[in-house]
């Protein structure tokens, strides 16, 4: 009914191994891209951009980053907030030091700097695993936040320790600073998301992704069949940190415009992104989007329904919102421990056979 696969033949290997082998999926993917690029920019307003779409896109990048490390390579990290802070502060220092260079290059450079820091903190992963690695990355989280608070060079010696993004343009259109229009904010984030998600999807399908998954599934066996654990683990840390660094840079420069490290990149951010990955589905790019959507959109939706729609007091709504989100997380994880991505996978299998299941 939904999936009409009759006549959907594959005549070459490359066709058979493409990301969306089913024609319907492929068309839907193109339709989403068209809507995202050609429709939403024309209708988006400040509220939708700043409160919903931009945070969703940025958290998606961070979730993809953490998913590469935790979901694909099996290395648990609690340092996401700290790595996002590296991205944000690197972007800030570059923006203020080289005002004439394009912000896009600064964001990408911030990603590379974060990748370097990530590799540094990833070195212990060669010796320690599991909970012990989680604790080591937790140390990275606290160390990095402390560092950005302690050393005034990172925030250009400002009296308050805040960093704030000056106005920067892409092709003459402001993408950071207060004068940025909603559609410009949205589009710059969308561009990064599409390129990065596309790259991540293809990385995880290739040699490097397979070596990550081999390490995740059983590192000793992987080593015996010839996967180099040093290379696999460190590339996972590097690529993951690159993504998280870009997310941090966009989070600071495009989304918030001004941050202080303890508040914006504290331990709660690490947990938030870890929850996104777990709820969305470990080892799935779609799961990263689903998890980010769940944890970004649901609280805003609940707030609007409870306070705006039903006129509840704001404090009651805020508490109920925590309880509903918490309860839903538990329900989802009991119903499907592999996250929203697995729910979707099962749902799709059913839809492909519907209405004639065998």
């Amino acid at each position, binding site marked *: 009914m939904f999936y009409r696969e009759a006549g959907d033949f594959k005549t070459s290997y490359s066709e058979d191994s493409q990301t969306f082998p089913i024609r319907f999926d492929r068309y839907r993917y193109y339709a989403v891209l068209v809507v995202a690029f050609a429709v939403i920019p024309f209708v988006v307003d400040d509220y939708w951009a700043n409160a919903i779409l931009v945070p969703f896109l940025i958290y998606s990048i961070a979730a993809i980053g953490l998913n590469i490390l935790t979901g694909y390579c099996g290395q648990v990290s609690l340092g996401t907030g700290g790595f996002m802070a590296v991205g944000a502060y690197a972007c800030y220092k570059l923006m203020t030091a080289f005002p004439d260079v394009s912000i896009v290059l600064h964001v990408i450079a911030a990603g590379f700097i974060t990748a370097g820091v990530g590799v540094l903190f990833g070195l212990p992963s060669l010796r320690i695993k599991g909970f012990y690695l989680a604790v080591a990355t937790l140390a990275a989280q606290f160390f990095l936040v402390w560092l950005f608070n302690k050393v005034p060079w990172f925030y250009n010696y400002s009296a308050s320790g805040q960093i704030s993004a000056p106005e920067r343009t892409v092709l003459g259109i402001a993408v950071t600073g207060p004068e940025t229009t909603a559609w410009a904010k949205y589009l710059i984030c969308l561009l990064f998301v599409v390129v990065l998600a596309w790259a991540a999807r293809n990385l995880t399908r290739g040699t490097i992704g397979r070596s990550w998954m081999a390490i995740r599934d059983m590192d000793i066996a992987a080593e015996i069949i010839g996967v180099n654990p040093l290379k696999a683990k460190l590339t996972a840390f590097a690529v993951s940190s690159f993504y998280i660094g870009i997310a941090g840079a966009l989070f600071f420069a495009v989304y918030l415009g001004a941050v202080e490290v303890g508040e914006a990149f504290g331990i709660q951010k690490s947990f938030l992104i870890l929850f996104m990955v777990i709820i969305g589905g470990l080892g799935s790019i779609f799961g990263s989007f689903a998890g980010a959507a769940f944890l970004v959109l649901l609280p*805003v939706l609940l707030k609007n329904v409870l306070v*705006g729609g039903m006129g509840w*007091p704001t404090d009651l709504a*805020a508490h109920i919102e925590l309880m509903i989100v918490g309860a839903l997380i538990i329900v989802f994880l009991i119903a499907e421990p592999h996250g929203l991505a697995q729910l979707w996978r099962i749902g799709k299998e059913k839809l492909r056979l519907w209405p004639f299941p065998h």
Partner: protein
Amino acid sequence: MKLKLASAALGALVAASPALADLVFPDLSYRTGAYAAGGIPFSDGYQDYFALVNERDGGIGGVKAKVMECETGYNTEKGVECYEATKGEGALIYQPLSTGITYQLIPKVSADQIPLHTMGYGRTSAANGKVFEWVFNYPANYWDAASVAIKYLLDENGGDLSGKTITLLYHNSAYGKEPIRTLEELSKKHGYTLNTIPVDHPGQEQKSQWLQIRRERPDYVIMWGWGVMNQVAIQEAANIRFPMENFIGNWWAGAEHDVTPAGAAADGYKSLNMNRIADYPVFADIKTHVHDKGLAAGDGSNVGKVLYTRGMYAAMLAVEAAKTAQEIHGTPDITAAMMRDGMEALVMDAAKMEALGAPGIGPEFGVSCTDHGGSGMGIVQQWNASEGKWVALTDYIMPDDAIIAPLVEEDSMAYASENNLSLRCE
């Protein structure tokens, strides 16, 4: 599906928004989280005063005030969401009660042309109206507070602080870091030694900080704390038997809920205040016109408390600014830009405060195009644990403008050049 639901919800929100004729005052409050203890009484006072003006006077100049509350949880991301959700409703003024959210909003309100009033918090150099057109921080700011505290200590020590050591215990955020520059400048002038000790958010864990204080034995501890940090600090000070009369909090670290958890041990703790606390006649009006009609914000238990009084004072200043704007522009339906003009022409004198039923609640001050900061005066109050009351120790103390004015000038000019702003009022 989620997007559809969200847009349906958003549609409901838009449909439920007030008629355009109302004067909209968003209240970015926080009634949840580690800072709720301070956020609740402030927001209660803020909302109750608008309710009083609506019920008793029929609104501001005949137009009803509409308060739109939005929960931020002292979190900047939620603050942005709240700002975006309310700004399209004709918001006249924002008072976020958070320095972090203030830094976030300063560029945004300047672009959207909505005034921002950060009373005794926020970015100190916004006092320079030549640079910050849309931001106001009258009647006082952090650097004033730091200077008032040092002036008080000077008085206590016969005008000489040389050789004394003062420790600043601060919330490790933009808020807590604000006074450091001023205290450093003042230490050069008065010859005391300054140590700074940060406390990380949310501040429940301060054992190591107080161990350090116990070891260093400073003559005085000044605290820039907020939320749960205050209670913990006062309890820890009591635990190491630090003399309470040498422990001074700023005006965000001097409310009833900060000292009561430590019980009798908190007796003698001092704090600054920018508004006097007393049994003002306006509270009786709030009781009859708001609480007795069941319109109280929150549970109605906070009337007369330090932060309730301050929240009410904030609303009072907003209402007076709106009235001034109505006079200037000759229309009761003012816009955000008119509101800004009203704020810039605001004069608070003794007669006005008396007429509002709150004689002497704040210092007398006037706002002008160049000066958005007010007089900067503050009082010192002391906690009497047996009576459960704050007792004012001093009258309003004038801060040391010779130190603060150049700092404000320097910091605001740096902001102006970073953002290519041209100076106003010339």
